[in-house]
């Protein structure tokens, strides 16, 4: 099995997400298993105005990259190949935005 990071970019702020979206998030592990994959880890991020960026030791208030879609969460999935990984990633509930699937370089990092 290979591992992939799924970055969730969302225009809608976390506090404004409708309850059915949150519910679908909770169902993700089950749906992934149905497709023969597994959700290894997942994390939801606080809004970007809470973040602090560091460049060469200099602090800035705010996200590293200013984008319309905000990185709202990251999860790591396990899948046999890219097709399975993409099928799982497509189930990610997003109101307005999308996801990016990136293969992990070495899944024994952690």
């Amino acid at each position, binding site marked *: *099995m*290979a591992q*992939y990071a799924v970055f969730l970019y969302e225009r809608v702020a976390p506090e404004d997400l409708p309850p059915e979206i949150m519910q679908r998030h909770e169902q993700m592990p089950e749906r992934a298993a149905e497709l023969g994959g597994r959700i290894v880890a997942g994390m939801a991020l606080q809004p970007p105005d809470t973040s602090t960026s560091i460049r060469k030791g200099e602090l800035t208030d705010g996200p590293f990259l200013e984008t319309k879609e905000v990185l709202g969460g990251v999860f790591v999935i396990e899948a*046999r*190949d*890219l*097709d399975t*990984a*993409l099928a799982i990633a497509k189930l990610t509930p997003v109101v307005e935005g999308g996801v990016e*699937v990136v*293969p992990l*370089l*070495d*899944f*024994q990092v952690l």
Partner: protein
Amino acid sequence: MLAATVRVTRDLDLAEEAVQDAFVEALRVWPHDGVPDKPGAWLTTVAKRRALNAMARAKTLDTKLPLLLERDEDDLPDEDFIGDDRLRLVFTCCHPALAREAQLALTLRLVCGVATADVAHAFLISEATMAARITRAKKKIAAARIPYVVPEPHELPERLDAALTVIYLLYTTGHTAPAGDDLVRDELTARALDLARMLHGLLPGGEAAGLLALLLCHEARRGTRTDAHGRLLRMSEQNRTAWDRERIAEADALIVAALRAGGRGRFLLQAAIAALHAQAPSYEQTDWPQILELYDALLRVWPSPVVALNRAVALAEVEGPQAAIAAVDALEGVDGYRYLHSTRADLLHRLGRDGEAADAYQRALQLTDNVAERTFLEERRAPR
């Protein structure tokens, strides 16, 4: 052979190396022991063994390549199996996670063994850019684990269009090899036809039938595209009695069945146009109004400037060169396309605007280094 080896390695670079090693091994062993009964199978077996050894040496075996073997290594390839392997390689190279340009480049390079320089030429970019594109695509296939499988039935139609496009471009690259003296690269065109047949076998009818029929029509006329001196001939000058009636009939049957079944895809419409040309008793007796109608339908499903250019040629036959030149001059974004300039030149010549025609031929000449095409254009440029 490359395809069979990739199935073992799941790593294209490694497979390519292993295949090269196998050839080197053959050069060493065959003069001594004689050529084996099945040279292809011998080479494939050696390449696979080389690849497996190389992988066993690599420490990354269990992290990077855990899905190495889908079947036993001893499962020796028969004809069908080799075909299936090639098909898997096509679908890997045409995976939607790869950019279309990368799909095209990879299939030409890996499935068909076209040199990187020729692949670059086919897409009007530099060799260095193409080499970088291919390297990046191969890295992505390995790192992201783009699967080496024929898609599931529910994914097939979507995946098929990319594969058909690639096979068609593969055929046209062989049909009019852009650089050098070989106008027709038999191997490229033959492989494209094989792949089209295989795809049609997998998903009969519709667009797969359309592509196969289109290639059959091109193939039927291929021998008459040049004269005895290798000079390019226009369709109006070609010897129609030499066209391959058997292939044209096969194409026609495919087209009629697919159209009856409701197919209106771009490959099928192109095939229908090509078949009308192939079945016309003479250039003048070609059913131009119906061809123009088919081009209109084609433009609706596939609004491309190249289609619009071909439509203009049909328009010239139905409404005259004046209407056609207006249509050609309205096209945008195709200045680097050599057929735009040769078509313009021809239309201008027919309108008696010879000075402008000569300029257009000159522009077309600057865009090709195929010897047969150059000769053709130089002759046209000279005042007749």
